[in-house]
């Protein structure tokens, strides 16, 4: 099959994935696995696991990382461009329309009341998300110290988020190098 056809197929598969997964990111992984590995054999099951590992150790949203990665594996640069465009387009279209609707409806009384309740519900979803992230973080003393320190730095000391991120990355790097050296000694 020629590359252009493959790129178009990648676009339509990832468009479908973008249009039908709620919550994004990790919710997308089983869908990607089914569509690209199981059905089309574009990549192997092991490669799916690798994609998750790569997506977690590079910046950016998981959906974009995995679309780019699969697209590249299947059809090179244009494959990655079409797959990424495909996964982004549904959100883009839906949210543009919703943004315009919200501008018109946000002031209606029932809508304001609904959002009053929804804001409390969102807190619940955020607590759950925090718990999920916590479970994925390493569980050792340094990790707990970084968690506490980054929380205090942002919540109380109001230090710039980027500075905190870079500081914590360096802390992780230095502490892992020290541990490595101790193991060898």
């Amino acid at each position, binding site marked *: 099959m020629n590359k252009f056809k493959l790129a178009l197929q990648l676009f339509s598969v990832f468009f479908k994935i973008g249009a039908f997964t709620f919550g994004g990111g990790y919710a997308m992984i089983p869908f990607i696995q089914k569509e690209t590995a199981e059905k089309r054999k574009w990549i192997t099951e092991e490669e799916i696991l690798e994609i998750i590992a790569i997506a977690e150790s590079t910046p950016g949203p998981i959906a974009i990382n995995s679309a780019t990665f699969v697209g590249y594996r299947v059809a090179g640069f244009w494959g990655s461009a079409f797959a990424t465009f495909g996964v982004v387009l549904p959100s883009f279209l839906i949210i543009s329309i919703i943004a315009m609707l919200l501008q018109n409806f946000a002031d209606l009384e029932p809508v304001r009341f609904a959002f009053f309740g929804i804001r409390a519900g969102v807190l619940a979803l955020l607590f759950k998300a925090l718990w999920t992230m916590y479970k994925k973080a390493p569980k050792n003393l340094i990790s707990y110290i970084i*968690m506490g320190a980054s929380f205090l730095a942002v919540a109380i000391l109001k230090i710039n988020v980027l500075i905190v991120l870079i500081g*914590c990355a360096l802390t992780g790097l230095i502490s892992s190098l020290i541990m490595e050296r101790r193991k060898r000694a």
Partner: protein
Amino acid sequence: MILLELFLTFFKIGLFTFGGGYAMLPLIQAEVASNGWLSQEELVNFIAVSESTPGPFAINIATYIGTETGGILGAACATLGVVMPSFIIILLVAKIYDKFRKNKGVQGCMSGLKPAVVGMIGAAILSMVGTVLFPKGIMATDALQNPSLPISIILASAMTVLAFKKVHPIIIICISAAVGILCGYFLPFLTIA
């Protein structure tokens, strides 16, 4: 030059977000607040919209803020900005991904970034709890200035139980919306909307 500003801001957000889901929240919160693009309350509202529509949070929020501040072109610039860093980095990494993943330096940085994201999301959520529970400000000592506090606490706690029981986010949002509407019409003195 709102378009360029949107692109650069979301490029930065995309570049410095590690891990999926709400890892982006602390950065978005900081940027949105410093630019005055959305109020904290609008941001919380939008999280609900994003949970009830398909697609990743990152793309949804970029498109939304882009539309609100710069129309359809603004949405395109913001979305392109948030996508670009991952796209470029994955293209670079795809060729050497095995070496990259097993690299000691990358692993070391990740061991610091993962817990950092947890702490920072904690901080972002704390300030959102403040906005939701005390819409008139936490310093409003008179209980009458925050009459909705009991309802918000009860609703948030009940929904947290449901969320941990793996009830789908959309159902949680629907229940919360229904409770909000009922309270608004039947208990207006306990509602701030």
